[in-house]
């Protein structure tokens, strides 16, 4: 009986292996975790509209996406932070950046006795994460929240333990608003040497820690906060206003500086100018090779990009991602022709 089982499974395996697909265009992509929900939605909807195109996207991380793209194991990549000049110069082939959606990062906290929304000045956030502001009733926090009874308790800082695009956006903001941060911790990065705090794995980890630890503060993606009904605070933007993150505020951040967005779309929109702008926002990009040999794949990718910029954007808000501003869409549509 043992032998027959072996034979049967071998045959099954071979049959399954032989069932190749004809005419299907299989595309593999890898990268950022932040846009995974919307990407999975897009690729699924696109597949239903074009059944012969299968785009398989796996969120192994922005760094992973960039590496796999370089290694040639995936057809295109995705990243929450744009590739640096150094990375681009080291790349064996030219890579184009295409922004897809906008996202935001919000501060969440758990303070005994405080149930409303707190206002955080830029200095306050930087100080908390640098470890220079250690108590909740510190003047910097108190002055922005008149009338709120803040306890004289130690702040428990929570950050991400795993490298992530969310950290990239958060540190990008902190580096812009605080020279201390920039000197001590450095520029925006997916992983940094945190001066203080505990690390949680993923948004889930950070939220979990904040929820369970009294007097804790952490940063999470806007989507995560909204989908799980987690209260979050307001952040002061460059114009001095305290803004609560929401989709219009995020799109405003991108639109504010639209004319200054460079040709290759690699830009940071944190702390953008404008009264209604939410300051901790960012694009996320698809990384497409400028030259694609396989004609079928090339056309599929180009067609998908066109779809993404038009039809695709309609799904953003449903999943709590902000839409791209119209200017950016127009410029991207033109940039598609650069893919040869």
């Amino acid at each position: 009986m043992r032998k027959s089982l072996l034979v049967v499974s071998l045959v099954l395996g071979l049959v399954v292996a032989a069932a190749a697909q004809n005419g299907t265009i299989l595309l593999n992509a890898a990268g950022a975790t932040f846009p995974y929900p919307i990407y999975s939605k897009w690729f699924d909807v696109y597949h239903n509209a074009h059944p012969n195109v299968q785009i398989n996207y796996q969120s192994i991380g922005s760094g992973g996406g960039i590496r796999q793209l370089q290694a040639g194991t995936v057809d295109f990549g995705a990243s929450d932070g744009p590739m640096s000049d150094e990375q681009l110069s080291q790349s064996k082939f030219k890579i184009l950046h295409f922004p897809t959606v906008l996202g935001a990062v919000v501060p969440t906290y758990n303070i005994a006795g405080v149930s409303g929304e707190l206002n955080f000045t830029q200095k306050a956030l930087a100080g908390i994460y640098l470890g220079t502001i250690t108590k909740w009733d510190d003047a910097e926090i108190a002055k922005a929240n008149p009338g709120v009874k803040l306890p004289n308790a130690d702040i428990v800082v929570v950050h991400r333990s795993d490298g992530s695009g969310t950290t990239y956006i958060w540190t990008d903001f902190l580096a812009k608003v605080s020279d201390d941060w920039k000197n001590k911790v450095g520029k925006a990065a997916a992983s940094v040497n945190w001066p203080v705090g505990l690390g949680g794995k993923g948004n889930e980890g950070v939220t979990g820690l904040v929820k369970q630890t009294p007097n804790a503060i952490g940063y999470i993606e806007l989507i995560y906060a909204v989908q799980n009904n987690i209260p979050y605070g307001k952040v002061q933007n460059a114009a001095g206003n305290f803004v609560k993150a929401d989709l219009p505020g995020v799109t405003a951040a991108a639109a504010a500086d639209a004319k200054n967005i460079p040709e290759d779309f690699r830009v940071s929109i944190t702390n953008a100018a404008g009264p209604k702008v939410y300051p901790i926002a960012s694009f996320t990009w698809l990384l497409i090779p400028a030259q694609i040999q396989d004609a079928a794949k090339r056309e599929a990718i180009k067609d998908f990009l066109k779809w993404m910029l038009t039809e695709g954007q309609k799904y953003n808000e449903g999943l709590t991602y902000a839409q791209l501003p119209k200017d950016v869409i127009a410029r991207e549509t033109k940039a598609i022709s650069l893919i040869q």
Partner: protein
Amino acid sequence: MSKPRMIWRKSLNFVMLSLTGIAALGVVSILFLILGYLIWNGGKSLSLNFFTQLPKPVGETGGGMANAIVGSLKLLMLAAVMGLPVGLLTGVYLAEFGGKTFSFVIRYTTDLLNGVPSIVIGIFAYSLVVLPVKHFSALAGGVALGMMVIPITVRSTEEFLRAVPGSLREGAMALGASKWKTIVTVVLPAASGGILTGMLLALARVAGETAPLLFTAFGNRFWSPGFQQPTASLPVMIYTYAIAPYDDWHRQAWAAGLVLLGLVLVANLGARLLLNRGSAVRST
């Protein structure tokens, strides 16, 4: 024997034996807690769809993990085919043929291999199988998992072969059997219970591994026929869904955990039934 000494020995006996019972009770309670949690959280989200549908994007009901279930089965099969024979034959070598120094080296190396973090094995398999051909595949995942299956198999095979009493071996030899025939017809069957346990334990361990698959089998939202394409697997789906913002995906992650456990259970039961586990060496 003096009375106080007897009383001491008898009390010690009672206390220690009770402690073992308490320990076992403790472990069993933790076990039931974990299983209960899984069943409770996972059972809520199980449905026929889970077993038959492909993953759907968030917000759409009716999605499932059919491809991940098949993918995990494929990967386990590959790991078994590649890793178990190596482990078994190495165990046989160590127990039956080995010279002193070489055996020591092999044992030491096996333990070292066991301690390598699963992600490092994944990276190794990536550079070995994925990079040269520039695409991810189920085969690469199988290679990574296969490497992880080896150490446990080696240890248990060697251990249980050694446990076979010399009398059995000598009996066979006295009847004129050559060494290898003795091993195959007498020693291995006698040790089969323990060896099988070891193999199933090894497979159970790799069934739940995520990190080695991220860069080898990669993952797939669609069906992946054959072994040359990236394939979905239950642990990777659990990992992806568990850290996502959506409640629906969290529930699916728990369901996947439950299904994974169920898979291992079925494989365990099936293997034991097939090979009719019965050990001639058991004494109590």
